[in-house]
Structure formats: C-alpha cells, structure tokens
C-alpha cells in the first residue's frame, strides 16, 4: 500500500493551509525547545563562570549580591568586609590563594578589578600573551577587554560613567599600562581589566596593605594596613580546608559561602520558572495540535466523497486510514523538526545577546531534553492523528457517495 500519492495530492491542493499547520506546530515546538535550551545554557554558563570561585568571604548580607558583584561583575553596592577580617583572611595559612577583590573604576565601560597576581593566573589558566602585572602601574586585560597590549590609560572613576547620571567624568591621575592578556574564560571577567589591588587602594586614597614607602605588590600584606574590600575569594588547600574555612569565617562580621551552593539555590528558582514555562509551552503545543486537528477534519469533510470513490475503486479501509493518518503525521513531523531548528536558533541568538551583554558564554545545545520534547510532540501528533483517521476509516462509503 502506498498512500503517498493521495497524501501528496491533498497537501498540494491545500498547501496554504498545511503550511500554516506546519508553522503552528513549528512555533509551538520552538517555544518549548527555546525555553529548555536557554535555561540549560544559563545554568551551564553561570556555573562555569563561578567555577574558579571556590569560597567567598564578604560582609554579612546577600550572597546573591556578592555573586553578582564579584563573579558576574555587575555594578552594585556591596558592604565592605571589616579591615581586621581582611587582614586575617589575606594571611590565612589554609588558603592556596586568598584574593581580595576591589572594584570602583572602569576604562571605556569595562570594569577595572583589583586583586593579587596569583588569582589572575588561576582565573586565566596561564596568560595568552605578555605577563601578569608586577607593579602598581601595570594591568592585565581580559580576553575581550577594549584595551590594547602596551597601551597606557588613566582609569575612570565609577563602575560606568555613562550610568551615573548627574556626575561628570572623573579621571584618576594614575597611569596604567597593559602588560598581559588573559585567555578567554567565557565569564564576565573577559571584559575586565585586572590590576594590582594596591593600585585600586592607592588611587582611592586608602592604605595599600604594605608599609608607606614599599612599592611591592601582592602577599604578604600587613594586616594593620589593609582597608575593607567587597569580597575575598579563597582557593583552599583541600576540600576539608574549604569546609573548615567556611565555618571559621561565618562570624558576626563576615559571611562565607560556596558560590556553587548559592547558585544551586538560584537554579531552584530558575527551575520553578522553567517548569511553569514548560507547562505553558506544553499547553500551547496541545492547543496547536487540537487546532490543527480541527482544520484537518474540516478538510477531510471536503474529501469525504473522494475517499468513498477510492473505496469504490477497490481501496481497503486501511488505505483510507493511512491516507488521513499520514497527512497529519507529515504535519507533526515536519513541524516538530522545523520547530527544533527554530528553537535552537532562537536559543543560540539569545545566548549571543546575553554573552555580548554580560560576557558569560552560554552554550545553547540540543540535548536529550529537547529531543524528548520534539519526540513527544511527534508522538502526540501521531497518536492524535489516529482519531480523524479512524473516523474516515469508519465512514460509510455509500452515504459519502450519495451525499450531495
């Protein structure tokens, strides 16, 4: 049996309508695929960005605010950690790296972040070119930061001068020279310029952590001469040390947390939203399939006589069933596959936009969830298709032939 001749003829005759059905199914599928792909990408991308931030210590407050400021480099006010705590943390023997983070300036809109040389190396996994800064006047550019190797510049005060309405542009007198560039990390840090923490402290008139006349940068710091910082990233020696340090720095003056854990809590909220949107997408898909079904039924009524004629010409009932079923199957399969491409395309486009805006690389990928969704859509279509197929299968030949 080969119902495709009849199926083709019917689809060609009603090509406008069938195209519309396919598009409806495609859009409904694309919405579902887009949501799940994007959510997964957001999860993977943000988790990857937090990878190198093992343990964070900051002033008591919102962990989310600290995450946004320190890992994702979003402008925002975070209370400063008490200088005494900073001094203690920077001298912490169980930390392989204890990196203070200092913000406040920018160059061409890219944040300038102050920290210690060891953290630059750790974050970048080795520089792409040049070397890590060795004096207060040197800087390392993120892979995508808008400064050139060897370029000298004066930092602009503020996180983004264009956002601080009413304040004029204030340029610091200090000159920084780019001496190295990091490898791409897929994080917002790619867009940043990293300088010695002493440099940030000095331009803001704060003690630099070293003796007055000392030019040296990096640890060890003089605990009596460190100012407060928004956050300190700790890379502990061991996992045991990580938990020990977290407990140790949960004090009235400081909070300590694993960013990975904080993200999991955020993902729970994200997951709830996704759940809700997935249900909405699923409901849309169901409605689209039902709408398509109603349309196909209307078309089939027009073809009632034609199917009866096929029966008169000797077509078995199963042939009629297959003609109807195949038509709907074509719509479901074509629509779902086109929808998969559309959804993936939309997710990639949105990911690009987010990467451009935040620096977080979001890997939008079609995974098992998306195939499951598309497969489910196809399966649903194929099952639902049996209803009109069965109605046509059962329809009386003689009544259809004699109907005027």
């Amino acid at each position: 049996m080969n119902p495709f001749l009849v199926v083709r003829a019917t689809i060609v005759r009603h090509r406008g309508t069938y195209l519309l059905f396919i598009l409806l199914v495609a859009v409904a599928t694309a919405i579902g695929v887009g949501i799940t792909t994007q959510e997964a990408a957001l999860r993977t991308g943000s988790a990857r960005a937090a990878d190198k931030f093992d343990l964070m210590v900051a002033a008591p407050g919102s962990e989310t605010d600290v995450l946004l400021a320190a890992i994702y480099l979003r402008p925002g006010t975070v209370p400063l950690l008490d200088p005494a705590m900073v001094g203690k943390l920077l001298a912490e023997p169980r930390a392989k790296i204890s990196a203070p983070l200092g913000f406040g300036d920018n160059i061409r809109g890219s944040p300038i972040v102050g920290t210690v040389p060891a953290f630059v190396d750790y974050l970048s996994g080795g520089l792409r070119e040049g070397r890590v800064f060795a004096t207060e006047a040197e800087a390392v550019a993120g892979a995508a930061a808008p400064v050139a190797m060897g370029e000298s510049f004066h930092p602009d005060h503020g996180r983004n001068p264009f956002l601080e309405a009413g304040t004029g542009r204030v340029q610091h007198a200090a000159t920084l020279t780019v001496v190295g560039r990091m490898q791409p990390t897929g994080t917002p840090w790619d867009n940043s310029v990293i300088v010695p923490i002493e440099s940030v402290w000095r331009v803001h008139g704060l003690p630099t952590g070293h003796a007055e006349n000392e030019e040296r940068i990096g640890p060890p710091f003089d605990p009596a001469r460190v100012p407060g910082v928004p956050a300190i990233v700790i890379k502990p020696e061991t996992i045991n040390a990580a938990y020990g340090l977290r407990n140790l720095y949960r004090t009235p003056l400081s909070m300590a947390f694993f960013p990975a854990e904080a993200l999991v809590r955020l993902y729970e909220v994200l997951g709830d939203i996704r759940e809700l949107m997935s249900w909405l997408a699923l409901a849309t898909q169901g409605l689209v399939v039902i709408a398509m079904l109603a349309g196909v039924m209307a078309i089939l009524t027009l073809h009632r006589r034609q199917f009866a004629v096929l029966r008169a010409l000797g077509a078995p009932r199963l042939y009629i069933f297959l003609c109807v079923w195949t038509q709907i199957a074509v719509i479901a399969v074509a629509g779902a596959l086109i929808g998969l491409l559309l959804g993936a395309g939309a997710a990639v486009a949105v990911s690009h936009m987010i990467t451009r805006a935040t620096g977080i690389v979001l890997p939008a990928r079609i995974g098992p969830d998306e195939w499951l969704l598309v497969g489910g859509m196809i399966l649903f279509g194929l099952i639902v298709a049996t209803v009109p197929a069965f109605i046509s299968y059962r329809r009386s030949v003689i009544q259809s032939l004699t109907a005027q």
Partner: protein
Amino acid sequence: MNEAKPGNPRAPDLKIEDLQVRYSSGAGALTALEIGQLSVLPGAQLAVTGPSGSGKSTFLYAIGGLLRPQRGRVLWDGRDILGEAESARDRWRRHTVGFAFQDFHLLPELTPLQNVLLPASFERFTPDRILRARAVSLLEHFSVPQARASTATLSRGEQQRVAIARALLFDPPVILADEPTASLDAKAGAVVIDILLRLSSREGRTVIAISHDQELLQRFSNKLALDHGRLTDPQLPSAPGTPSRTPSGIPS
C-alpha cells in the same frame, strides 16, 4: 489492451435475488431498492434509467458490493458478494469491477498516468512494470495526451477517458458507470459511449451504466428503468422526469 471476443468467459453472470435496501432517515426507514429477480448475462451492455431518487445509484453500488442490504443476495457467478467480509469485497471489487463516475473523481494534482495507476497503490508501494505498461497503453488507446503534467488541464472528455482507463487498470470483467456522460458535451459523451460499448462488444466485459442520456440509452442494447426502487418497463413513461424520446442526447 485485452482483445477478448464477445462472450468472454471471464465475465461473470449477475443474479439478483430478493434484494431489499433501506436507508434510515429522520422520518424512519426508506426503501431505496426492492428487486425480486434479475439476471444479467456475461458481456451484457445494460443501461439503467429512472428519475432522481429512483434507486439507480443504490442499484449500482449494490451490485458493486459497496453496501449491505437488509435482505437478499447479489450473486456474481454464484458468489454472494454482499455477504462477504469487507476486505474480501475490497479485493474482489479491485479486480472484478471498474467504476466510472459522472465527475470523474481524478486527482488533478497528479499526472494522467499517476491517476490511472492509483488503484495499484492500494496493493503495493510502486506499480510493477507490467501495470505501468498497461496504464501507458490504456492512455494511448484512449488518445489522452500524456505529456500533460497535470490532469486538471485536460478537457472533460479526456478526463473521463482517464477515469475509464483507471477503471480498466486491473483488467476487470465488469464496468459500472454512474452517469458517465452527464457532465460532458454531446460530442465527448458520444466518444465515451463508444468506448463503453466497445468494452462490451469487443472485449466481452459486462458494462452497466446508469444514465439519463438519451443517446446512451438508445445505443445500449439492454435497458432497465427504476422507479421508487422497483423495476418498471423502460418503454413506458412512468413518472415525471423519465427521459422523453428527444434525440439530443442532452441529459434531462
């Protein structure tokens, strides 16, 4: 083409015994057909006429095995078609009966050749070489221009010839035609009548046509008239709408 002689033993003889078909309607059951005894010899050419609603179509579909009667039997070579299972009837119909309709019922999106080969798709995925060759020769025989990609661009007369070629694909010994000339002009209608008569006289097929067409009625050698589902004498005008003897051949 099959060049069988008249009286081809392949054509089965038709016997109707005590047949009654009733349709249920809103007002209750309606008797559509009631035939006590009727015998049609193999290779006959039979025209059935009667006013609208006289049961002509029901008669045609009953002998074509398309309905289940309330009572009685339709015997083709003694085989009670209406009593058989649906799948067996489908197979029997495919190979024994060729149907032609007033409105052709071709698929205009397909080529003439694809239309003729359509019944082959009821059995297998692609038609074999023999069927394909047969379809081509049928179209040639009926002078249908095959170069046309679309059946929709054919004239109505050509379209009916494609439909008859489709009916003949499996070389069935019986041809049933439902008002085969009613939507054609006189000239195209005459060609179709020639073809139907030749299928009987030259090839020995049983050809049964229901029609209002005076020319068809005059040229078929056997005639039956139906009125209110019962057989009447075709020579007597029995009800309004019975064909009058005008020579025009235009359907009334």
